[in-house]
């Protein structure tokens, strides 16, 4: 359980590294995360970056604790930076008592020298600088930070590199600014007393491909670590914690990717798009699969010409009886709207993993958002059954991926698995995924045919036995038109009604048969209860623990099945809730609309964020507190993050 900052025995430490995109910030943060995790800490790390390949500002925050952490906090304890932009953008988030390691060389850099800072940010920065009464330089803002109790550690990255060049007898090394990252992370590790061997080990792991580079980086790390250790008096801040066995360090896309492997997905089509394609690239990189009692299996990953083709190919593959999926983001999903309905009318089990990002249109393509929910639920012309299912964190996403495939097979419909950029760009520690908890249920998929076969046989619960292309004697037809039991076109009004009812009755069946806890998770109930979905789970749980430690108990219902909406369960769980608070990362409170249309109840308060940045537990904590205190507006908009 997270306690407020300063409670004894609790480690709750946030590290931030920033720099131009493409310069290696990601590598540095990978190393830091690994070291902390190996040192026994739980971590939550998240990356923010521009829609740009090189040069724009990117940063990574890692929260480190000896308890579970599931979100970022608004305050930073240690920031390391070798570029001015990082300082300008983040100095004010460093908490009093926190620290900044920075590059001496940039002390005199002025705000106007930083071309990548857009005018809007600059304007706000200048206002702040004027208020602080300091010069518009790195030195100026650092002085201001120091005044408010932040420790600032100047370091000459150039000198460190020069030392290394000398050590290796290679003067060209002096120019390798890329190495600033390893230096930065190692300085940090030294300063906070992370175990030195873990750092060196992690650096070597990360650069394992080329021996030369590996050695060089390890030497740099060692040297910088030692310099860091000399810097100050935080030596025991992160000296280590008791390691939980079976802890994994996972990245955002690995939950769904490994979930697909285990679930038996053997075909994935995709068209590149941020933040979805990492998953497909990971699958393709690991396309050959170990299979128990058999030779290697594999997943065919096909990069298509567009998302229309991606969904078409996925459906074609699924018709052969293969578990098939695609992975995309908003713009790609828009292009899939038509074929989604085809899968719906033909009862084809497919899974679309929808990694949301900020819309509308191209929007903020590398930023977070939860704004595709209503589109996932209502997208595509006409009416057809589908399931929309959302995971709250990476660990869940592994198990949920397998559930989604089961749902699609058992109920014979397309499943849209809602993920988002918050999840995809996170690195966290969590209990390693446990495939033994997975069950595969292929529903009424046939493996042989007995007698006459009709794909869309009416009767019973309306879920017909399913043949597949190539199955002996299992011939069927499919069509986007309304069809009869064999799958041939019909315009008969009576059959039309039967078929519409057959398909759509599945929405009730799903709510009846899917276990209630899979539909909505009740974390707690209370007079004030939060309803939410997807990746807000982490910040909410962290905020609720903060409130708890203040003696305030707030309920939380995490809705996982968004469509069909588990109205009865949610209604029942909310019986004792006087005030319902909807937390979402979008502008219009989309889930709140599903909620109200299903249970005819008003949302009392909305807490929304749509800047493209994820919620921190602090800002959420404050917003909830305000509501409980009374007088908060109907709609609170969160703004933290650069």
């Amino acid at each position, binding site marked *: 359980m997270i306690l407020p900052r300063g409670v004894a025995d609790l480690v709750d430490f946030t590290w931030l590294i920033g720099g131009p995109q493409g310069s290696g910030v990601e590598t540095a943060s990978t190393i830091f995360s690994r070291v902390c995790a*190996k040192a026994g800490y739980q971590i939550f790390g998240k990356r923010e970056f521009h829609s740009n390949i090189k040069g724009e500002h990117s940063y990574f925050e890692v929260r480190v604790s000896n308890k579970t952490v599931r979100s970022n906090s608004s305050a930073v304890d240690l920031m390391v930076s070798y570029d001015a932009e990082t300082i300008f953008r983040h100095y004010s988030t460093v908490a009093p008592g926190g620290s900044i390691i920075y590059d001496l060389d940039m002390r005199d850099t002025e705000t106007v020298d930083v071309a990548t800072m857009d005018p809007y940010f600059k304007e706000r920065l200048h206002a702040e600088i004027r208020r602080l009464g300091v010069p518009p330089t790195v030195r100026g803002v650092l002085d201001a930070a120091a005044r408010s109790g932040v420790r600032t550690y100047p370091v000459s990255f150039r000198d460190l590199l020069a030392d290394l060049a000398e050590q290796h007898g290679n003067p060209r090394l002096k120019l390798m600014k890329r190495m600033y990252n390893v230096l930065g992370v190692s300085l940090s590790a030294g300063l906070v007393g992370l175990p030195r061997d873990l750092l060196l080990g992690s650096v070597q792991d990360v650069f394992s491909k080329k021996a030369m580079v590996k050695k060089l980086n390890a030497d740099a790390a060692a040297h910088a670590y030692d310099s860091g250790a000399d810097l100050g008096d935080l030596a025991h801040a992160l000296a280590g914690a008791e*390691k939980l066995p*079976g802890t*994994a*360090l996972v990245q955002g896309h690995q939950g769904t990717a*490994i979930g697909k*492997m*285990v679930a*038996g997905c*053997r*075909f994935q089509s995709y068209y590149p798009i941020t933040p979805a394609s990492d998953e497909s690239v990971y699958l393709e990189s*690991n396309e*050959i*699969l*170990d*299979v128990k*009692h*058999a*030779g*290697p*299996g*594999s997943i*065919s990953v*096909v990069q*298509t*010409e*567009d998302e*229309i*083709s991606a*969904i*078409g*190919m996925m459906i*074609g*593959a699924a*018709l*052969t009886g*293969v578990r098939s999926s695609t992975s995309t983001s908003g713009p790609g999903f828009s292009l899939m709207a*038509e*074929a989604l309905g*085809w899968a719906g009318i033909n009862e084809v089990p497919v899974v679309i993993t929808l990694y949301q990002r900020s819309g509308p249109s191209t929007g903020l393509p590398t930023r977070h958002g939860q704004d595709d929910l209503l589109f996932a639920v209502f997208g595509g012309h006409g009416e057809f059954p589908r399931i929309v299912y959302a995971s709250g964190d990476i660990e869940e996403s592994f198990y949920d991926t*397998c559930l989604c495939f089961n749902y699609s097979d058992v109920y014979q419909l397309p499943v849209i698995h809602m993920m988002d950029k918050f999840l995809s760009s996170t690195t966290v520690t969590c209990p*390693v*995924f446990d*495939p*033994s908890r*997975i*069950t*595969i249920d292929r529903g009424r998929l046939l493996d042989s045919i007995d007698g006459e076969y009709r794909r869309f046989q009416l009767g019973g619960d309306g879920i017909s036995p399913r043949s597949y*292309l*190539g*199955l002996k004697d*299992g*011939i*069927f*037809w*499919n*069509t*986007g038109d309304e069809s009869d039991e064999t799958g*041939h*076109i019909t315009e008969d009004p009576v059959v039309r009604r039967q078929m519409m009812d057959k398909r759509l009755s599945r929405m009730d069946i799903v709510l009846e048969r899917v276990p209630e806890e899979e539909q909505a998770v009740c974390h707690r109930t209370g007079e004030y209860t939060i309803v939410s979905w997807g990746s807000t789970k982490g910040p909410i749980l962290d905020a609720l623990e903060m409130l708890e430690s203040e003696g305030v108990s707030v309920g939380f219902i995490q809705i996982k099945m968004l469509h069909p909406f588990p109205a009865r369960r949610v209604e029942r769980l909310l019986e004792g809730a006087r005030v319902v608070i909807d937390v979402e990362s979008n502008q219009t409170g989309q889930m709140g609309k599903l909620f109200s249309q299903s249970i005819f109840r008003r949302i009392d308060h909305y807490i929304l964020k749509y800047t493209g940045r994820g919620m921190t537990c602090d800002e959420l904590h404050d917003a909830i507190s305000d509501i409980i205190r009374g007088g908060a507006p109907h709609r609170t908009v969160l703004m933290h993050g650069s």
Partner: protein
Amino acid sequence: MALRVADYKTDVHNDWCPGCGDFGIVNAIQMALAEMGIERDQATIFSGVGCSGKTSHFINTYGIHTLHGRVLTFAQGAKVANPDLTVVAVGGDGDGLGIGAGHFVAAGRRDIDMTYIIFDNGVYGLTKGQASPTLKLGEQPKSLPKPNLNYNVNPIGLAITSGYTFVARGYSYDIRHLKDMIMQAVRHRGTSFLDVLQPCPTYNDINTRDWYAGLDMKDVAERHSRIYKLEDTGYDPAVHYADRGDLDEKISQALIRSLDWGDKIPIGVFYKNEHITSFETRMQEHIPNYIENPPARQRISEEGSPLTDVSGLLGSLLV
């Protein structure tokens, strides 16, 4: 027992207009399937949306009537997942060369082992006769309010530049020849493209059966069918050597012939290249046992338990 043409027919009522060229194409497909002895449940006909799109309902194999313009995407997905299937995709000229042109180009690059047949009638039949992309500039079949404003696409040329390795044309009233083209196309390893001239007696009152037969030609003595067979002229469509010289020659001659229209319209094989690595082989380079163990043959669970063993990957994630 050997399968007969009749075995490939369904009893679905066929509601194409009397005299429609589509009938000949369906017959030719059924004849080709029977002659090649392809098991009914080992073949799938994918179709687009249009009059032509109904084809899959008339053929007694697996039949997937997809979406307007998307037939190639469904077909390719199925074939990659189950390379054992015989996959034939069919659709209209609007379907394949208008709304579907992007997939047409991409499929050429992939060159997966399947056959694609376009029913080329110059119009959008099922939506009542608008201009299709193959209709020539300035022509005005009866349901156009104005003469066609656009140039036509050249299906043969487009197929060749898109990378199709077998490119041919048939005529829906020459069923034996068409059947032969289909058999060659199905047997070809790679994506084979077949442009079938298909009169639409209802909406295309320009390129009619009589017109193809040349009955409108003024000089009665000189009257002749507009259609001739490339093979009758000694034309050799095949790339024989994997060098640039032969390739350049075969591509150029095919493109030049593809521009023929009017009084001399070639049918037959325009271009054939067997020196291209097949898609399956390329897949094998990534996945060594792809052919023996493609997605459709893989077992994924045993009594509900997953068979995939990800312990290696998971181990690498442990801290």
